[in-house]
Each structure stands twice: as C-alpha cells, then as structure tokens.
C-alpha cells in the first residue's frame, strides 16, 4: 500500500511540476489574453469533470474495504487480545498468534492518547488504531507471515513515547 501511495503521489506531483515549468518557460512571450482566458475556462470545466469522474470510482473502491470493525462485532471467529497503553508501555493479554488467524485487538489506554501500531519484522507498518482513555477501539488484523512483530506507539504521549514498544510472535499453524 505504501508503494502505491508513493507512486501515485510522485506521478501527479511530478505532472504538476512539469505543467508549471512548461507554462513558466513560455511565459515571456506575449499573446492576446482573450483567447487564452476563453480556452482556460473550457479547460477548467473539462479538468473539473475529469477529476470528479476519476475520484468517484476511486472513492467507491477504497471505501469498500474499510479497516473498521463491523457494527455487529464480527463473526466471533477472531481471537481476542486486549491491548492497554500506558506511559510508556503496552500490556497485552496475549502475544502469540497463528498465521492466518484473524485477531481482534481491543485497544484502550489508562492515561493519555497512544496509538497501537503493528510493525512487521522489516519495520513496515501493517495496521494501526488509536489507543484512548475511556474508549476501546477494535482493530481486526490477520497476520500473513510468521515472525516477530513490533507494537509501537504512533501518537505522541510524552517523553518516553519513542520507547513504548511490545512484541507479538506470529507462528505457523
């Protein structure tokens, strides 16, 4: 997902830079503004509809598989692990899960806001949810690969924020 986000961003950011550069390069030549403004108005309308037409299916597709828990709490097949954040440590009710096993992390906090972020063995972020006092966020995640996963805090929570970590061992079935 991170690669896709990066590639899309680079593509469109680069495109904008090129367009601005081309316009700047040709800006010293003077042409009648009437024709340009008229053509620009049409271009604006076309661009607007292109963006709308492009964004609607993108929104539709990306909203089809949200990371949020279903309203009824799911099928009941998932393993439940309670995760409680405190300055500056995690308390997990269990830290061993199997590959392919859906896990519902019930995430809360005792003091301030934290964020429960799962990093794989290559330190790539694979899932996260906020950890808040007074609330329980349910994060469902299925681990695809065995290994030692790190839990980091991604919401600034004070001077020990960067040291707040735990481990989850994901084993083959």
């Amino acid at each position, binding site marked *: 997902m991170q690669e896709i986000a990066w590639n899309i961003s680079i593509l469109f950011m680069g495109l*904008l830079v090129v367009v601005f550069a081309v316009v700047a390069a040709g800006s010293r030549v003077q042409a009648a503004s009437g024709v340009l403004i008229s053509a620009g108005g049409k271009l604006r309308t076309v661009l607007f509809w292109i963006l709308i037409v492009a964004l609607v299916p993108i929104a539709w597709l*990306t909203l089809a598989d949200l990371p949020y828990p279903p309203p009824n709490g799911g099928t009941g097949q998932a393993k439940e692990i309670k995760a409680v954040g405190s300055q500056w440590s995690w308390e997990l009710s269990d830290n061993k899960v199997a590959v392919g096993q859906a896990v519902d992390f019930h995430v809360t906090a005792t003091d301030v806001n934290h964020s429960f972020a799962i990093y794989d063995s290559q330190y790539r*972020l694979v899932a996260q949810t906020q950890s808040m006092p007074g609330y329980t966020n349910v994060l469902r995640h299925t681990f695809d690969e065995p290994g030692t996963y790190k839990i980091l805090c991604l919401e600034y929570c004070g001077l020990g924020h960067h040291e707040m970590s735990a481990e989850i061992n994901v084993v083959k079935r």
Partner: protein
Amino acid sequence: MNTNTQSSLPISAGAQKVVIGYLAVCGAVLALLMVFGLLLRLGQGGMVPLPADLSYQVLTAHGIGMVGISGLGGAAIMWYFLARQVALNSSILLLNLGLFLLGVVLILGAVFIGDFAGAWTFLYPLPAQSGGAWEAHAAAIYMVGVLLVGVGFLLLHLDTGWAILSRYGSLTKALGWPQMFGTSIDDAPPPVIVASTMVLIINTLGLISGAAILVMTIVNIYMPSFAIDALLAKNMIFFFGHVFINATIYMAVIAVYEILPTYTGRPWKTSKPFLIAWNASLIMVLAVYPHHLLMDFVMPTWALILGQIMSYTSGLPVLVVTGLGVLINVSRSGIRWDMTSGLLFLATLGWAVGVVPAIVDGTIVVNAVLHNTLWVPGHFHTYLLIGQTTMVFGFMYFVAARPDSSGDTTLDRLAFWVFAAASFGFTMTFLYAGKASIPRRFAEHLPQWTGQDQVGAFFAALVIVAVLVFVIRFFVRLGRPKTA
C-alpha cells in the same frame, strides 16, 4: 513600499508600519523555528546529541510556533489588501501583534523554562499527565499563551467582519451569493473580499472551538476531577487546528490574486467558478477535519467516510480554480519575472503539489499505514513551506520593493533556486520516510532510519540559508532610502 496592486485605496503610513512589523517578526521567527526544525532532524539523524526531553520541547516550540507565525504572515497579507477595500482599524492589527508576542513569550517560557513538551496539539489529557516531565503551571502557561494568540486573531477577524459588513451589508453578499446564484457577475465583490469573508467565518468558528478546549484543559490541569471526554477533546482540537492552519493559506493566497496579475497585466476578476470554489471551500474546510481522526475507530463511520470524501473534493478548488487560474494568468503573458512574481508562482505550485499526498493520506485504507508516519509532515510541509510560507516571502519582497529599485540581485536569484530545489528535496525526504513507515514525533530513530534524516537535514540546512537571504534582503531593502 510598493503600492502597485489590483486594489488602489491607500492605507495609512502607520498601518503600513504595522504590516512591516508583522513581516519583520515573521522573517525573524521563521528563520529561528526553521533552525529548531533542523535541530530535530539532526538529532534524529544522530548528527547532534539531542536528549529526548529537549527534542520534544523543540518539537513543541517548532510546531506551535510555525502554526502561529503562518497565521501572522497570512494576516499581514490579508489585512494589507483588505484595508484597500474596507475601513479596517489599525489599532486592532497592532493589538493582535502585541497579543501574539505576549503569547509567544509565555509559550517559550513554558517550553524552555517550564519544560512543557506536550506537542503543539496538546492532546487532552497529556498536558495534565506528563509522567512527571513538567509541572502543572508550565502546561497552564502554555495554554494561556496559545489562548492569547487565539484571542488576538479573533479580535482581528471581528474587525474585518465589522468592516466587511459595513461595506457589503451581509456576509452572503460579501461571499458573492447574489452573483453566484444570479445571472450576472457584475458588481461581484473582489477576490480579497470573498477570501477574507470566508476566512473570518471559518477561523472564528475554529478559534472558538480552540479557546473552549484550551480553557477546559486549563481547568482540568488544576482540577483533575473536571474530566473531559477524550474523543470530544480530540475533535475540538483537530477542528481548531485544521481550520486555523488552512486559514493561513487562504489568507496568504490573497497575495497571489492581488500581486501576480500586476506582473502579467491580466486582472484577476471574480468569476462564477471563483465564487463557487470559495463558497464550497468554506463548507469543506469545516467538514473535512475528521480526516485527522481516521484511525479513531470509535468515531461514527459516516463521519470518517465524510472525511475521506471531503479530502478529495477540497482539493478541487485549489487545483481547478487557483492553480489553473494562475497558469492561465501567467501563460504567454509576457510576465516580468522577479523575486516577488517568482516566489508567488512557486508558492502556487507548492500549494497545488501538496494537495496530492494530502489526498492520498486522506484515503482511509492508505491512512491505516501512513497516519502519524513522516508522510504527514511530508505533505503539510509541502503546502505550508513551499506554498503558504513562500507566499509570505513573495509578499515580503513586494512590500520591501522601492520605485527606484532596478531589480533583484544575483544573490536573491541564487537563493530562490536554492530554496526551490532544497524545499522540494526536504519535503520529498519526509514523504519517502513516510513510505518507509518511519514514525513522526520520535526523538530517537533506529539506525536504518537515520540516513533519511541526514538527507532531510542537508536539505533543511540549504532551505535555511536561502531563507536567511530572503529575510536579510527584506531588512536591507526596507532600510534603503526611498529615492536614488
């Protein structure tokens, strides 16, 4: 002072001095805060020893300082051009600057004397529960400092609102509703009126939300039994923060509308698409803030979906109206390029480009793996550093220009190109680090992350060198005699 703009009513010499005072404070504080930012990247990269407590203090000062100074720069631009259309009170302008400086003193004292390091977002209940890192008084003084800055801006917007209402009779007329819903665009308010009205509405709402949560936080600091719902507090803080920082851009872009056309000879006239875009932005900037809460799964799902959709649509006015509008205005115009026009053009590019990674991050499934990584400072530095702040730099060159000026120096032009290249390098390094899942707001980084920190620090240092040229040249040009 340069008086060549689309608007022609003069402003008083006293008011001009206050505007220059705003810019002088902006230049000096921006440079200082950029050094703070560089220090953070050097510390993360292991190039200077920066203890965690000091790192988070610097982070707090850098964040809140940049938000505030962006507001001050935007306000200077808006006030300067709005005063040419309606009767503004320069005493309020001065009062806002005074409250800002007083607030800054309190914030710096709370951070560097009181050790407050609650980040600029001061997420409840962290200010009251520091884990022993700072005293209650330090947190309260920080909150009071931010409150004073907010009160100053609120007074400023009340004055702009009073002046606009006195001239146009209603906010809807100042937003161009009669023309937007009518058949004729005649007598439409000029862009500066539309933009200033939009800003006064959104920022008043944002500042009230911010003031309310600041006061509640102060009460909580001294009376822990006065508890606030953490999710409500988070909503109020992000609503305030999102609206305020976006308002800084909406104020600053007035410089683009007012100044750039004088270089191209093509006036920026209010059109129906312009009115639709600004009125739509008014709604969207208020409704989009849940995109900061996409990982708060207990939020109503409809609000989070709205956050994603609004993230997509709120980029359209930037790209389709202002971005494309600038391109049309400049294209084959015979424009006279100098530091002012160059910086304003670059700033429009920065704003437009910054929209892209912001929209990407506003997608819920993407946010799940980018939220609170360095991708976030990557996208907001793009539209704030290369966008908003560059608009302020362009305005500084514009204000300091003299009728006898024969142009910019080679040093100015060199600084421009260094700034353009380095600021893109700096922000792209952040985005790349976000792609690599490196967390934001970490005082210490793993060994495999430090290479990107060092590259970022290199570009940050170049940005600072260029900015120092901009700022010093601003003071030098102001100090020159008005006649040759």
